[in-house]
């Protein structure tokens, strides 16, 4: 493992801003929204100090931020932005256009509850609303992963078999504002890892003029959507390749699913983002009491690592899925995906759905323990949505 030279206590926002500094993108468009704001504030300072050569566009709205990075990326620039919650919702229309234009944009999302009522704290309703937009979704557990994934995202997005935008999700406040120890790569190492951008059909190549964003009627639209679907299928392979290369320079090895004490686990809890850390801690406590428990944290939610999950869940006694977002009138998004994956599993575990933490509500060890205890007593009901930490 390479020696650690660059260990610092930073917030998640600083970690991502530093990844952006090392990436030195050509264009960054930015608009403030809590809890994302510090990312672009730190980055703006790098621009102001001449630490990066990035051209920054301080736009008048998130809609224009996404529009401008679409323009910049189409022009041939490596373009990035960051947002959260209502900002992401305001971008929604152009989020789809970015993906369908196959532009390798990377965007950090400090996950926050969507209004209304207005709430500035963490949940996953913002990113889940973009679930089907055609963006790759990476989900960080902590500042370290937020930093690592931002670097990896560039490589995945720009890979010629992929050419899709990537969202790096990191829990608002919990990760964005919480201070943690992060191991940074040397600037040179990081720069070498991300490499020079690979540009396809740049608008500014006037010798070969191209028309971006044409009208695509019923005679081609379907085929173009199919191409996007196929591109998504390449992501898992590319993620693994990029992760392997990243492991060589960092000593940190990522997989599509982060597995904690699952080998012999009879009961597995699945969650996205920072809560996985709390679950791991709880798993340690429960293990001390003799329970065979483990955690799976999808590092990527789109594309969904269905087959990998099936292999891991086959034959377990109980699977508990924690969602930090609701789907009104249907099952919570992560639960729905896991449940659907289990349809084809030979020996199906009991499964249960738990929604928690909406609008920043704390998730505590007791809550996690309670959900595990439901599983231990065989009390998981596939069609029942339960809540953790809700006053009833």
């Amino acid at each position: 493992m390479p020696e650690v030279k660059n260990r610092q206590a930073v917030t998640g926002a600083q970690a991502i801003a530093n990844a952006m500094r090392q990436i030195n993108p050509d264009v960054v468009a930015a608009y403030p929204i809590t809890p994302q704001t510090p990312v672009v504030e730190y980055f703006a300072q790098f621009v102001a100090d001449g630490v990066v050569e990035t051209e920054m566009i301080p736009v008048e709205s998130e809609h224009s931020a996404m529009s401008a990075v679409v323009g910049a990326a189409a022009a041939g620039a490596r373009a990035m932005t960051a947002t959260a919650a209502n900002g992401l919702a305001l971008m929604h229309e152009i989020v789809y256009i970015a993906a369908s234009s196959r532009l390798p944009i990377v965007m950090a999302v400090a996950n926050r509850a969507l209004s209304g009522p207005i709430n500035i704290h963490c949940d996953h309703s913002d990113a889940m609303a973009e679930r089907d937009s055609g963006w790759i979704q990476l989900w960080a557990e902590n500042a370290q992963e937020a930093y690592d994934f931002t670097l990896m995202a560039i490589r995945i997005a720009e890979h010629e078999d992929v050419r899709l935008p990537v969202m790096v999700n990191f829990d608002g406040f919990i990760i964005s504002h919480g201070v943690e120890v992060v191991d940074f790569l040397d600037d040179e190492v990081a720069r070498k890892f991300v490499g020079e951008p690979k540009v396809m059909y740049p608008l500014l190549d006037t010798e070969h003029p191209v028309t971006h964003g044409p009208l695509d009627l019923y005679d081609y639209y379907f085929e173009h959507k199919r191409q996007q679907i196929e591109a998504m299928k390449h992501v898992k392979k590319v993620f693994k390749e990029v992760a392997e290369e990243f492991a060589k320079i960092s000593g940190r090895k990522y997989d599509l699913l982060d597995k904690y004490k699952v080998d012999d686990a009879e009961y597995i809890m699945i969650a996205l983002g920072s809560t996985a850390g709390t679950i791991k801690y709880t798993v340690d406590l429960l293990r001390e009491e003799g329970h065979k428990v483990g955690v799976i944290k999808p590092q990527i939610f789109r594309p969904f690592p269905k087959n990998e999950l099936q292999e891991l869940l086959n034959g377990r006694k109980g699977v508990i899925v924690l969602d930090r977002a609701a789907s009104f009138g249907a099952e919570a998004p992560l639960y729905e995906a896991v449940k659907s994956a289990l349809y084809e599993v030979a020996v199906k575990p009991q499964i249960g759905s738990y929604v928690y933490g909406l609008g920043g509500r704390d998730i505590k060890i007791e809550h996690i323990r309670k959900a595990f205890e439901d599983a231990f007593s065989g009390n998981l009901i596939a069609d029942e949505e339960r809540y953790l930490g809700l006053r009833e």
Partner: protein
Amino acid sequence: MALNIMQLATMFADKHPGITSGHRLCPGCAAPNVAKFALMTAEALGYTPVVGFSTGCMEVSTTIYPYTAWNVPYIHNAFENVAATVSGVETAYRALLKKGRLVDPNKKYAFFAFGGDGGTYDIGLQALSGAVERGHKFIYIVYDNEGYMNTGNQRSGATPPGSQTTTQPVGKKLSGKIQLKKNIVEIMAAHENVYVATVSTSEPMDFFKKIEKALNFDGPSFIAAMSPCVRFWRVNDDKAVEISKLAVETGYWPLYEVERGVYRVTKKVKELKPVREFIEKQGRFRPLLKRPDADEIINELQEYVTSRWERLLALEEATKDKPIR
């Protein structure tokens, strides 16, 4: 390089300045000529145009995949964001130039953003205002056909009172749109660090010169082009230029420019024709003309047009040699 009319005439005859023949706009539509006039001026002056378009008639009719009527780089993103999109393109240009990664580092680029009146006066105004305030070096051109044509003749902020539209039709009880046309030119001029002008295809020389000025202007430019829609204005398809001319001669569409707050009326009409002439030539005002309150509405419009014309002349006098910035 100076503007050379022979050269422009040849380019126009060649039919390929930026937008080529074979697009699917209605015969007689003024919009493609607005684009052609602008792009051929840029090309004649040695610029390579890069074009952004907002959703609307022009965009849907020129880029039906797998075909395109554009022989210059072209990007369409969405309805309300062409100004933001082109600000991204222009910023990318500066970034890539600085980093030495531009494919054609020696090219003189001209960045154009085109939008219909709906995509400019209404839904796109915020992105436009933001881009102009940030000072991107680009030329925004609104082709103003006074309504949402692509979606079928709905009212926009540019629709004049009394014009028939489908979302504010003239009916038994209501006289259609009651509000006057939004004065987009003044809104844009109020951004101060900008070159703003109105143009009409009926005055080509004036049009070309203003594009030249915009290209030379050190900052953003905004050009409003009168662009009759022959379908929904209910005029024959050889009448776009004629009706545009009448718009200018009645003072309904005064030709002027504002450069950092300094006004200049570029076509001094000696005696304005009555606005009624402009109205009576178009089928879209026919329902209005049948109404008992038609005179009232036309008189109100006439009063507005006259006082605005006088105001423009006064502003020209008052702002002479007094740029805001």
